[in-house]
């Protein structure tokens, strides 16, 4: 056996490294989505704790999940901007997502200002609260990749994006249910 010739590896390494970095860059973005998903899964399913082990009231639960919805929308928006700046998605794709996310933020701010009236004050504004929640859900529906024509070809990316967006929808479900339990909504 002679000495193996490593020259060909040395020659191809820059190209291989470039491809590897590109692949890792794409994979890392998937981890971004997965991270959000995992975070949501951990917090959404029973991770609200009250000091002293007290009972979380339904209205308290509604505003807490409402705050989480705002944070999630904010983080996804930052992720979309970052992905566009790194060239992973086009300006048009980012624009479609961010336009809907901006509307979600506006509708959610309107909802939050109604909840700011307190439980009894919010009950008097039940119709507007329901309308704000419906508006957020409509924006989430418009964000599904089929409807928005985002052109995300990779099935894993499609699923990850769908999961991230659906998590906002799940928060509206919990908020709606909590407000119904609190007697704010019928």
């Amino acid at each position, binding site marked *: 056996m002679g000495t193996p010739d490593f020259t060909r590896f*040395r020659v191809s*390494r820059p190209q291989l*490294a470039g491809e*590897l*970095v590109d692949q*890792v*860059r794409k994979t*890392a*973005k998937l*981890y*971004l*989505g997965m*991270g*959000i998903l*995992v*975070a*949501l899964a*951990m*917090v959404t399913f029973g*991770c*609200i*704790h*009250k*000091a*002293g082990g*007290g009972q979380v*009231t339904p*209205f*308290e639960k509604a*505003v*807490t999940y*409402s*705050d*989480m919805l*705002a*944070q*999630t*929308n*904010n*983080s996804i*928006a*930052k*992720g979309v*901007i*970052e992905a*566009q700046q790194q060239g992973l998605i086009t*300006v048009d794709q*980012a*624009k479609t997502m*961010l336009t809907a*996310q*901006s509307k979600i*933020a*506006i509708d*959610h*701010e309107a909802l*939050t200002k109604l*909840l*700011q009236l*307190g439980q009894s004050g919010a009950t008097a504004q039940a119709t507007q609260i329901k309308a704000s929640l419906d508006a957020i859900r409509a924006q989430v529906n418009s964000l599904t990749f089929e409807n928005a024509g985002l052109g995300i070809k990779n099935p894993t990316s499609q699923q990850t994006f769908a999961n991230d967006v659906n998590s906002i929808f799940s928060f509206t479900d919990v908020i709606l249910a909590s407000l119904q339990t609190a007697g704010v909504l019928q």
Partner: protein
Amino acid sequence: MSGLTGGLNLAAEIIGLIELAGQVGTELYLKLTAIGQLSADDQANIANAINDAIAVDEDTQSKIAAWRVAVGIDPPLPTPPPKDPVIGTAPAAPPAKPDPGKTS
């Protein structure tokens, strides 16, 4: 030796990319965990959650608006007029025009 250095550089770059991409997810995880840790005071929890949500929604809107300007979708906002250098004072009034009816 150069192969080892190249490999280390590549590893550093890969770790850097994963760290960058995971930053938003990690940040969200920490924020959601913090939001889920409520105090014993119901009213304080409600007020904190509402104030935080409004601030975050406004941050989302401003970041998206800034991005739209940066990529050229929206025109840049007009530059505000220069402020008077002395804080708390009104800009100096223009010199008064001479009254044509008066003679000195």
